[in-house]
């Protein structure tokens, strides 16, 4: 067993591009679900509009990176308004239904043959991140013990974790303010908040936009980190993994989604590496190497179930708080 190699890869992934993407997506979901109580099942849609906004601006419109970022952010705000205006006046479950459908509509739209000239169909749009990498101050990759990052990945990861840090700072500042107090109160009981003279609809809309914009940052990192946008990267499993990350780390805690993302990707790669080696050296005989990829999700799912049973508040959550009578 080459534990050094397994651990090295696990740590690299735990701090890598995917962890950054899921951390940002989950930070956005934390504002929606953890603080405001909005059930957004379409977070993938926010990442998709940002990533495609960026890629289309650069490749099709041939405009600079910075314009692409602005267009991506505007697209995320527009999506939040589009989803929120009809549904935020209704009961919470309607938002869940509408968001999951909207995210799928976006994915199928950018995947469609009709719009192939703009969005590139199922192949997506590739190789548009040269400008992004031209800003990189790094001339070589990173080799720090078992952690290995290529020159490009290092730049993506540095930008990514900076965005994560800034997002956490924003969420922390917001949630300790009176604005955050109203937001958390809406999660508890929106009629009570209404009876105290607060415009609940307006606050929920603000929360939906902020969470969507924070998630869209993950979309930008996704696009430049892989130098490609593909419609099927933004399927519903992206949203559900982001929820898993959030609940694992602890919803309603500033650092919950960040810790959740790191642990999630560390564990996924760790289980994968360990299983693969055990199969290769003949310790495990009942599965083949090409089945490891599926089995690791079973084990991860099982671990999440156990977490929900024995620590439903997540790693950072407060069990006493969760146990309170929600009425």
């Amino acid at each position, binding site marked *: 067993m080459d534990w050094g190699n397994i651990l090295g890869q696990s740590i690299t992934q735990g701090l890598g591009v995917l962890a950054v993407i899921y951390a940002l997506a989950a930070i956005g979901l934390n504002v929606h679900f953890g603080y405001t109580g909005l059930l957004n099942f379409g977070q993938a849609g926010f990442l998709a509009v940002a990533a495609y906004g960026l890629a289309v601006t650069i490749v099709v419109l041939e405009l600079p990176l910075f314009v692409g970022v602005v267009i991506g952010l505007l697209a995320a705000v527009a999506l939040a308004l589009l989803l929120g205006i009809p549904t935020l006046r209704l009961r919470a479950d309607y938002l869940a239904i509408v968001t999951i459908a909207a995210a799928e509509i976006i994915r199928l739209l950018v995947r469609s043959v009709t719009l192939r000239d703009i969005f590139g169909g199922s192949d997506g749009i590739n190789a548009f991140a040269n400008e992004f990498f031209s800003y990189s101050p790094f001339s070589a990759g990173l080799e720090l013990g078992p952690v290995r990052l290529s020159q490009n990945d290092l730049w993506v990861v540095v930008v990514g974790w900076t965005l994560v840090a800034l997002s956490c700072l924003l969420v922390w500042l917001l949630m300790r*303010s009176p604005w955050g107090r109203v937001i958390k*109160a809406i999660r508890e009981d929106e009629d009570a908040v*209404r*009876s105290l003279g607060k415009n609940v609809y307006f606050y929920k809309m603000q929360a939906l936009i902020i969470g969507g914009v924070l998630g869209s940052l993950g979309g930008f990192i996704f696009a430049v980190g892989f130098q490609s946008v593909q419609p099927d990267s933004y399927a519903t499993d992206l949203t559900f993994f982001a929820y898993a990350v959030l609940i694992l780390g602890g919803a309603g805690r500033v650092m919950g989604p960040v810790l959740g993302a790191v642990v999630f990707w560390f564990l996924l790669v760790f289980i994968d590496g360990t299983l693969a080696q055990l199969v290769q050296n003949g310790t495990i005989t009942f599965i083949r190497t090409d089945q490891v990829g599926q089995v690791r999700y079973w084990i991860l799912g099982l671990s999440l179930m156990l977490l929900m049973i024995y620590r439903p508040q997540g790693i950072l959550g407060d069990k006493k708080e969760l146990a*309170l009578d929600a009425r």
Partner: protein
Amino acid sequence: MPDDDAAALEQADIAEERAQFAHTTIAGELLGRRKAVEALADVPHEPGVPKPDPILVADGIVRRFGGLVAVDVAHAEIQRGSITALVGPNGAGKTTFFNLLTGFDQPNEGKWSFNGIELKGKAAYKVARLGMVRTFQLTKALSRMKVIDNMALGAKDQKGEHFWAAVIPGIWRRQEQSIEAKADGLLARFKLDTKREDFAGSLSGGQRKLLEMARALMSDPDMVMLDEPMAGVNPALTQSLLGHIMDLREQGMTVLFVEHDMDVVRSISDWVIVMGQGKVIAEGPPDAVMSNPAVIDAYLGAHHDKALTDTGESLSFTEPE
């Protein structure tokens, strides 16, 4: 805007007036109560009767749920500075009427005004901002928030509740301190000061009722609407809750409350409005209303000659003894 100035002046006047007679008693008698009783002394005891100084006037309010007419109030007025009880049998439309007045539901027909301002079509949060705050039959304590945060939420016009200002603590910190000081004062008055840092969800049912009432007072309302303030409160707390409600009147606020307990109604209210099948069927001071044959028929049933607290259920409990 000149309207705002006028409103601000009026607010200042009200505050001054409140300060003048807050907690003052003459020979042990509550001044607010005397004022209310005197004002209502010459008002005839009939449904929909006009009051000398109404704070709330409702006209032709109809609310239908499909074929069912839940509320059909031709006319109702609430005297400023009084405690008015809204009573009636289950399903009489009391809570629906409450929801309509406070903007939590919209009627099919009718109009109503508060302090002379038309409320038709106004959202619930706007009604609350105008100075009419309510509590709920099922208490809505914000469980996973601290008691002090529950209180601070009630304060009006908070700078830090605007998104961009929220990010810069310098903008709202001072106001926050004064809000907390005010909240601490109210918590002490409601004997919840020892619970300040506890989660609201850890309070008992009665304490939650107190917290909800205290939270409503954070906005300095002109009128407080209490939906069954005594429901689920243990008898030891009832007296203290009653005291707090009477105290609101002494501070110049108007109280409208829904209640089933006739002893409570009799002991604190200046005026009683009885609803039955969505309509106002009787009005008057508590004693007059309770001997009104229409009320006895609709509400008290066959046991009207017994003590008023002995409803059918409690009688059947005591019979075997």
